């Protein structure tokens, strides 16, 4: 009995959010929520920690900046210095003003793409993957809570009774 998965299907984000608060106050753990758009305020209710994905962008960006500067130092100063319009060709520091644009662009390039790839991998969404949303309408106008009976002290029947107090559209068990 304890490994049952209960799906509570709602037709409104506000109702789901308020119901989630009610269920959590009764000691029910909500494993996940599927919705067609982000429900603002649901993260702390179901106990989701803040994502750290923004930090990865900063790290990738810094790596990009470092690669760009190292590359330009090697190409323009170390390997083949050229006198172009009398611009300094013997020191990175003196020539840095004209390296700023490429440094910036390459930093942004690495930050954006690195973060996008990290995002895909962390979400495990890549071309050809199968969708795992329990009901197809969760990408249209349905809002679904996924509750595992084993996550809380209560039995599946008790959980369902609590869900039934809220204006739920349908309770499904799998």
């Amino acid at each position: 009995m304890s490994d049952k998965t209960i799906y509570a299907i709602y037709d409104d984000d506000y109702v789901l959010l308020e119901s989630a608060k009610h269920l959590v106050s009764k000691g029910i753990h909500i494993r996940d929520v599927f919705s067609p758009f982000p429900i603002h305020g649901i993260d702390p209710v179901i106990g989701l920690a803040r994502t750290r994905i923004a930090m990865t962008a900063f790290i990738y960006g810094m790596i990009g900046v470092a690669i760009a500067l190292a590359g330009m130092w090697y190409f323009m100063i170390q390997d083949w210095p050229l006198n172009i319009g009398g611009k300094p060709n013997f020191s990175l520091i003196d020539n840095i003003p004209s390296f700023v644009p490429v440094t910036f662009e390459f930093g942004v390039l690495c930050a954006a793409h690195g973060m996008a790839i990290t995002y895909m991998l962390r979400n495990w969404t890549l071309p050809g993957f199968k969708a795992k949303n329990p009901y197809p309408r969760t990408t249209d106008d349905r809002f679904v809570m996924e509750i595992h009976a084993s996550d809380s002290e209560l039995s599946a029947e008790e959980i369902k009774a609590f869900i039934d107090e809220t204006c739920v559209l349908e309770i499904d068990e799998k």
Partner: protein
Amino acid sequence: MHKEAAIREPLILGDDVTYSKITADVLHAIEHEPTKLWKVLMTIATITALWGIGCILYLVGTGIGTWGLNNTMGWAWDITNFVWWVGIGHAGTLISAVLLLFRQKWRMAINRPAEAMTIFAVFMAGTFPLVHMGRVWMAYWVFPLPNQFGSLWVNFNSPLLWDVFAISTYMSVSLVFWYIGLIPDFATVRDRASKPVQKLMYSLMSFGWTGNAKAWQRFEEVSLVLAGLATPLVFSVHSIVSMDFATSIVPGWHSTIFPPYFVAGAVFSGFAMVQTLMLIARKAMRLEYIITVKHIEYMNIVIIVTGGIVGVAYCTEFFIGWYTGVQYESYVYMSAGAATGPYAWAFWSLIFCNFINPAFLWFKKIRTSLTATFIIALIINIGMWFERFDIIVTCLSRDYLPSTWTMFFPTWVDLGVFIGTIGIFSVFYLLFLKYFPVLALNEVKTILKSSGERYKNMSDEDFKQLHPVFKTDIKVTNDTNNKDNEETTD
């Protein structure tokens, strides 16, 4: 529930708008056979695109001598078109990134089509420097790759190389930003699709998106950070494009005002193009209740502001041309160069299209009129093309040595490639309108409760009646709990 100020006009009109109605209306084009209008436009666009591809093939096969360029006029229509297309692209990024950072909700109805425009426009822009190389197959030489000439590297001091990095970064980052927003909407199409081929295609394109809470949390964070990255990017791109001119010593180009002047001009022309496309699309797709007259008006206000900046920049250039006392500068601006020289017609077209024409938008009646907006936007598009033509051709045709003075006459290949890119752009855009979710579904749905007309007119009591949380009135015992949770939520 967060309500915004009642004084703000609603962004989604109609009393019957629900989440499923938004889905059905936005995906209508995907789920139904193409309309007659679409087929006609697609046929015209395809013929124009094929003509353009033919011209490009002829150009590459014969050489850029088929253009009207000569020793003095090393750049003319090609770079004019390049700057024009890149400029058009800027509106999309401004709407999706800068307005996201400013938390402007009206951006949500138009960011998807505007950003599609950005990406296709930047593709078209990239075509021109590429074909101008002559030997297109050697285009990879612009990248610092080890080579057989003793590893002779590209010149990182040159604005032309900065451009390579700026444009390619801009194109790929815009594409990523756009696609990340598209994934959840492709998932919506996938889950509604009934035909097997359609289901397979959209399954592939939606990357197996599930829309669970953690994914949405990451989605919002990634969108915000990408907006933060794209904002300085969009300003840097056109600044760098302007440095192609500003770092040279050609009189009329060598000017420190160029970077901000070009960025404002880019946003100005981009919004005009968004208006041109959006006014047709919203009507043809019957999405007038999501892309409302209010949206059109907001965009017109952006046009007034950026057009004003461009106007001030024109005046400044003239003032500085006179004030510096540099004879070459003042020649370009004050005498034969611009206003009275052989290209006076281009100059006065520019003044009419970009200086006088947008001034009509100061009147509320005109900026809320769809027909007037369409005409003004179209004229601005033409005017911004003339601006680049003026800067490039007028300045080059009258440089330091009168013995090198010459005129530029475009050939049919010049014209053909330009018209061809408009055709290719239109093909891309029409395909986008037919096969992609044209509006950011997931974003429009988030503002339905705060900015929808139906919800704005509703009292809190009515709202509770419409969306009751509990079946029976057991709320009394739970009220304290709810309040506690609400505090942590915010």
